[in-house]
């Protein structure tokens, strides 16, 4: 009798505990503000496909979870040996098995899984579909940042090379061609789609789409060495008109700096930075006046003999058109937060507004390894150039003109 009472208590408490843990699990489902990388708040049609599969699968799994856990708890209470049990009296019936039952609990889960499998197969085959107005972006992973290459007019030449923050038009499919220049990385914007590995020597397709304008946080998810943990990126989705404006700005050379300090900074840049970083038109050994080009050189790193293992560093021509830099670790513009982690849905601007956060830029230039662990001795990442404070001032004054 006592066992039966305990069993009922176990049943109730067990169910409650399961429900509470389920609630804890799904509590954050709606919040992209609290959890910028949330996988349970899809913001585009590809992520929707996944989410519409995740919900029923989690529901089925949750049901089985409750049945098994509560079942185990109930049995533990119900069939517990009591202190007054005597050997030989009321011993358990020796059941060796039941073929019907066995076949039943083989077939029933198999059938459930078969049903799920149909939806699963359907979803897998839908993942690569694109609409006719899709645009193409080449995504290149390297230690430890992402590069994006746009061929706007589809003429086979690269028109825009940018880094860290990818800009796409909202409401349109974006066909990504994901590549790597060194080791395996994985491109992941949870709000827009699942992951896709960037494997050297291969090109992998991934389609993303953002229903609304906004900034969507991302993260490299394949272990890629030292700074894998902070290899972050963003996708900025813009209204079609804003996207056109962005393209317009990105394919036009920035204005030449005019004040003394910035010009001196330009000089420092050409001497110190161009052996890895490209600003369209500037090259190592060039002489003033430094003229910008509209189009980037897609093979810049190889051409200047960059010693980096990936032979490539971020193109900084339109640095200030981005909201963040240093692999999405630092904000370029002064804002609410010191760090660049955010997912905001609803609005985004083609040209960032506000005051440049020169402190962040200076912090980075003083010693990049403080911000992001790198191994320049093994040609992985940016070395500390040992710039003087004056040079840093000048460089920053120059960099903020790159818009």
């Amino acid at each position, binding site marked *: 009798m006592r066992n039966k009472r305990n069993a009922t208590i176990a049943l109730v408490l067990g169910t409650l505990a399961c429900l509470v843990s389920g609630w804890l699990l799904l509590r954050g489902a709606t919040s992209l503000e609290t959890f910028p990388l949330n996988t349970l708040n899809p913001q585009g049609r590809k992520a929707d496909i996944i989410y519409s599969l995740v919900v029923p699968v989690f529901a089925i799994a949750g049901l089985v979870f409750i049945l*098994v856990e509560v079942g185990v708890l109930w049995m533990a209470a119900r069939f*517990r040996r009591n202190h007054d049990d005597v050997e030989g009296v009321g011993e358990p019936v020796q059941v060796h098995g039941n073929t019907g039952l066995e076949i039943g609990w*083989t077939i029933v889960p198999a059938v459930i899984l078969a049903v799920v499998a149909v939806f*699963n197969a359907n979803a897998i085959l839908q993942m690569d579909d694109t609409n006719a107005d899709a645009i193409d972006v080449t995504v290149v992973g390297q230690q430890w940042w992402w590069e994006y290459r746009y061929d706007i007019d589809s003429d086979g030449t690269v028109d825009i090379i940018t880094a860290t923050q990818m800009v796409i038009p909202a409401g349109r499919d974006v066909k990504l061609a994901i590549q790597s220049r060194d080791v395996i990385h994985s491109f992941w914007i949870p709000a827009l789609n699942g992951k896709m590995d960037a494997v050297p020597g291969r090109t992998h397709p991934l389609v993303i789409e953002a229903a609304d304008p906004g900034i969507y946080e991302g993260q490299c*998810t394949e272990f890629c060495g030292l700074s*894998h943990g902070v290899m972050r990126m963003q996708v900025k989705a813009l209204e079609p008109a804003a996207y056109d404006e962005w393209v317009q700005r990105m394919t036009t050379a920035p204005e030449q700096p005019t004040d003394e300090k910035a010009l001196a900074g330009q000089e420092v840049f050409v001497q110190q930075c161009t052996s890895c970083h490209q600003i369209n038109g500037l090259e190592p050994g060039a002489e003033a006046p430094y003229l910008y080009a509209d189009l980037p050189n897609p093979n810049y790193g190889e051409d200047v003999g960059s010693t980096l293992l990936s032979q490539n560093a971020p193109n900084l021509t339109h640095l200030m058109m981005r909201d963040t830099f240093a692999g999405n670790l630092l904000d370029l513009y002064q804002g609410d937060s010191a760090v660049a982690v955010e997912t905001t849905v609803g609005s985004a601007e083609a040209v960032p507004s506000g005051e440049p956060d020169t402190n962040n830029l200076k912090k980075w230039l003083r010693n990049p390894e403080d911000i992001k662990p790198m191994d320049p001795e*093994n040609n992985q990442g940016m070395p500390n150039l040992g710039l003087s404070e004056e040079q840093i001032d000048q460089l920053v004054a120059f960099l903020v003109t790159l818009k």
Partner: protein
Amino acid sequence: MTIVHQRSPLELPSGEPLTPPKPLGVFSRPKATSGWKSWFTTVDHKKIGIMYGVASMLFFLVGGFEALLIRLQLAVPGNDLLSADLYNQVFTMHGLTMIFLVVMPLQSAFANYLLPLQIGARDVAFPRMNALSLWVWLLGAIFFNTSWLFGGGANGGWFAYAPNSGVAFTPGHGMDFYAVGLLIMGIGSTVSAINLTVTVFNMRTPGMSMMRMPVFTWMAFITQVLLVFALPVITVALFLLMFDRLFDASFFDVSKGGDPFLWEHLFWIFGHPEVYIMILPSFGIVSEVIPVFSRKPIFGYPFMVGSGIAIGFMGWGVWAHHMFASGMGPISVLAFSLATMFIAVPTGVKILNWMATMYGGRLRFTTAMLFSIALVAMFTIGGLSGVTHAVAPADTQQTDTYYIIAHFHYVLFGGALLGLFSGMYFWYPKMFGHFLNERLGKWHFWLMIIGFNATFGPMHMLGLQGMMRRTYTYTDGQGFNVWNLVATIGAFTLAVSILIFMYNVAHSYRKHKANPVDPGPDPWDARSLEWMIPSPTPEYNFAELVVVEEFDEFWHRKYGHDEEGRLVRIAKTEDVVQKPGATGIHLPSPSYWPLVLAVGLPLVGYGLIFNLWWAVPGALITIMGIFGWVMEPADDPDGGHEHHEDESPSDDPEAAAELTDGAESGEASDEETVAADAEQTEEAPVG
């Protein structure tokens, strides 16, 4: 008495006795079977099993320490306790330690100790090879950990994806130790797997057909078969990596045409069966413990065995589900996704059969039983989260996040380790002749369950909220703060529970020393053959070989059932179990050579990594070990290794046999009387 002689590899088992040549002078065999020195030369499967267990528990402390470092680093956002580089080493070494130095050898410990007992054998098929596999593994494991002294541990992840694991991207010796260390340990595992496979095939006691073997024997056997086929695949991969790193080959150098996918496929073709290698023995342990403490037979024995075999087979067809995000194309993803979903079916069958075994039983909540029930409950969670990412599109969101970490810790900790702890409490009296304290055991259990769920439960949330794996830090704004702190507190709770376990071992030993209480052969009223013999297991295992007539033979000698199917005792346990003190059973002699052979391998390993010339002494030692092994008499012809309890050892085997005969008629009961075959004491030839 039954005479057991060890066959040399060159002798026909059914052949007529051969004339033994004189052993070659210096190569006489060690004789001691007790004292600390005997542990280095023993070929006794029980001692080997215990050494596997003790060593892997020590490595468990190492791996656990690494886990605590990980949790401390991630306790708060932006922590700088560990540098990114050190963190990468620590998480890589944590994974490798827990897999290759803890869970796999722990299952080896149980398999070594129990397989011969459960099939009624006196030893494994090749006792010296058994010792070899222990020493090769142990020295390989130590070798692998010495990488900390040579510039840092492996830092490319346990999966060591190329090309990041190559010398260009990961200079330093960590990944060299990874490749060479795992190769050495792989030799040990292969030898062990072949040995135990043959043991189960060939060494079963009369009447012990395959379908009468205990479920643990079955699961451990399937594990060995999986090892036999999975290890060569990782061996190939590790050789390619080693040649790349140490000899400038270009298997994974993309600029020379190498393909990183080759590594991924080879690794996971091994890596997925590896998961079942780690979990199946625990399934076996639970299938032993639950029936004993439910006083009911295992429900659906043929289905338990069949589902184990099914898991073993299907485990080969699902490896690429680790690669859903690797870009292998939708058709491959589809095929592997569907295959993966259906591997849940045989696993589900097991869960339901355990529950059906408990249903209607009379459950005794010993610590062993608690751990087993916890396995059923916790593994279910790991299994279900597994189903959620068998669905490939969902997996592309979940893979490489903390959701996966939660999943495989529920499988490998909530599954494998809880099962292994259950086995420790269950078989401890059989192995050491005294119980582990049950009160402390329950403290251990509850703290471990609470700590375990507090550590890994929140990781489900973290993963779904987007926290990626293998990250040395996170930022305040990412929303990961709360659950990471909870997980860290949980990890320390786990650590306390392990301390309690260790205290329990020491405490129980001290109490036993002060006041020895014989647990008797059958302390739990159990079912399989190992409970018929005294505790701790005598050196010869079975004084007489048991003839098996049905599944759960021992149980059925104790119990029948009435017309309602209820349990009825038909014989007293004391009348069924074997008496201690058998004499004259001839056991395989200890040997130096397994240890000698194994010592050479790590030296060769250092040579490969640092300077090939340094490999020469190692190779010489190994060759000497092989030579000594082959030349060693299969048994020491001077005798002296018979298990003598009552009579003084005799130098003349014939006389010893006669003595044995005489002794038996005096003290052994009729049932135990076994004719000694004097002829058989003649030694097998040099092998």
